[in-house]
């Protein structure tokens, strides 16, 4: 994770961002602190912090730094120049932590865990708004795994992690409206139990949640029905107010990058 010291809306690269609608610095610091506390204390997650950088307000959204497998990270290449400034900072940090940093071939965009998620041993890649479909081959060649590209069609859900939440090996929460018809079919054939949430829930970024063991940490906004379903799977649901980060188009998941202890821990 990375402290939101310089967090602000400095440009508009997704429909949630409005320069005129700035996050409150104190409030965002408080919300972020609460997320950190819940993750470390309640979900028992070990968190490492990437130092914030003045010129990179979106560095807080560490999920977009890359995708980690074991001691290797496939580093992102951001679609927008505004965020490309973050790349060298992440690269340097991961290098120092002893990671082997792998690069994407020239001219292809990839935004890390924001668009690449694992569910039931299967990798899914969201593409079109940020990452590109063809990057799936790079990932596949690296991990020797099948990667299924899913086309995103709703700009509000520009990253896969805003509309696709693998809860455990069986259950996936997703918002069907964010995907094209082919992607919906792929999800239905490859996810054992896909559970659709409503648009009303999805726009609250409830699917941008962090799963740690049997704990799900997410922005508040799930319907009673979905909450009941989540709890019936044996999950503890911790709902937080992450409204200040929503102004930038991000939430709990975007604020964290998963570094599995072992390669197979996904």
């Amino acid at each position: 994770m990375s402290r939101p010291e310089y967090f602000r809306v400095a440009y508009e690269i997704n429909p949630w961002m409005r320069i005129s609608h700035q996050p409150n610095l104190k409030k965002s610091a408080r919300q972020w602190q609460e997320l950190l506390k819940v993750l470390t204390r309640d979900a028992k997650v070990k968190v490492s912090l990437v130092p914030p950088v003045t010129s990179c307000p979106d560095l807080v959204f560490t999920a977009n730094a890359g995708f980690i497998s074991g001691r290797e990270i496939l580093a992102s290449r951001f679609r927008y120049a505004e965020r490309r400034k973050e790349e060298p900072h992440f690269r340097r940090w991961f290098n120092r932590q002893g990671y082997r940093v792998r690069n994407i071939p020239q001219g292809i965009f990839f935004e890390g865990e924001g668009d690449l998620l694992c569910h039931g041993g299967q990798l899914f890649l969201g593409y079109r708004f940020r990452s590109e479909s063809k990057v799936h081959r790079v990932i596949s060649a690296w991990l020797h795994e099948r990667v299924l590209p899913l086309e995103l069609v709703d700009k509000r859900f520009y990253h896969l992690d805003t509309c696709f939440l693998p809860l455990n090996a069986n259950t996936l929460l997703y918002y069907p409206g964010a995907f094209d018809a082919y992607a919906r079919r792929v999800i239905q054939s490859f996810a054992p139990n896909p559970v659709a949430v409503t648009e009303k829930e999805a726009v609250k970024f409830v699917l941008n949640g962090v799963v740690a063991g049997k704990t799900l940490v997410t922005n508040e906004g799930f319907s009673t029905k979905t909450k009941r379903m989540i709890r019936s799977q044996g999950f503890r649901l911790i709902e937080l107010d992450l409204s200040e980060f929503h102004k930038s188009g991000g939430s709990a998941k975007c604020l964290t990058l998963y570094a599995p202890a072992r390669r197979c821990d996904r």
Partner: protein
Amino acid sequence: MVSETVEVKGHIIDSLVLPKILDTILAVPSARFDIEDVRIGRKKSDTSYARLTISAPSRSVLDKLLLKIEQMGAQPTQIREVKLARAPKDGVFPERFYSTTNLPTSVYFRKAWRPVLHIEMDCAIRVEKATGRASTVPMSDAKKGDLIVAGQSGIRVTPLERERNREVFQFMASSVSSEKPKVRLIHALAEEMHQIKAGGGKILFVAGPAVVHTGAIPYFVDLVERGYVDVLFGGNGLATHDAESAILGTSLGVDLKSGKSTQSSHDHHMRIINRMRRLGGLRQAVQKGVLKSGLMYSCMQRGVRVVLVGSVRDDGPLPDVITDMLEAQNEMRRALAGVELAVMIASTLHSIATGNMLPATVRTVCVDINPAVVTKLSDRGTFQNVGLVTDSESFLRELARQIRNFPSFGRRPASKR
């Protein structure tokens, strides 16, 4: 028929990427494909491969299709660098120059896609060899020896997505009709204008003299005073009749209060032009206290950037009117920087000229009593256009009324433009 060979690689079977690409081609009735090679992986982690040749009756149909399937992961078998040719002399493009659209465009130069700056249709793309910077260049600005993009290869045009958060443009598609709920639409427009201003964007108005003839100036002035007009394009007629109504109370000789035309007033506009020419222009008339109200007066007081462009039928014209067309085009281009919304009212030629200069990402609203004008603007390739067939006075009256529900914006810092 033109054709191109593309490759698709990866997990293209399970992910339905290949079926999707084939469906996309089949959806274009005139296009067809031949599968030249397919290799399907056996194990889960194996990748598959397909090579297809796609044919279409024209280059534009093929390019559009290629663009769509490229997003899905298909790639032309050879990635082609953009071709460049030197401009043979000043103001002339090389013979096979690529003519631009108003959509976001990139060129593949020295192994990287480079976004083209200052998007404008009907221009060429100039590439600077040293920096790789690509930008549009109008024909008249080309300099001998400039490197200009030629042919079709290595060019990528990105179609616009329909944005969901822009309510007014979602509410009304670009069809032109007089049968639309105008008050609701104008309300959505007012909201859009407020959002743009709040976000630091600029709003452009293009207006014809009918705005004066119909008596809409007070409402227009209200919008200016509230800070919702940053740039104004018009012609000799707009400024002349505005000054005429401000000083003499008539527009083309018709009394704006009584609606009557008097025998002695048919020459009012000529007298106004003559007076302005004597004073040196509108700004001087404001400074000397001759022009004390009206649209031009308010614009000058508020620091609105006004560009008046002449035409062959003009009387006078006013000294403020630019009569050199190339200079006028460049002045308009400069004024368009930062504009996010263009509202065009009762003006045909200036609207079309403006529409042609705008990138497709700028939203436009075209208001005219004549449906043909609205249609014509939509046909000129100006996307994201909302057309409204209505009288300019009733439009501006309603817009001014709606905008009062939103906060005003302060005077822009004085600039010496």
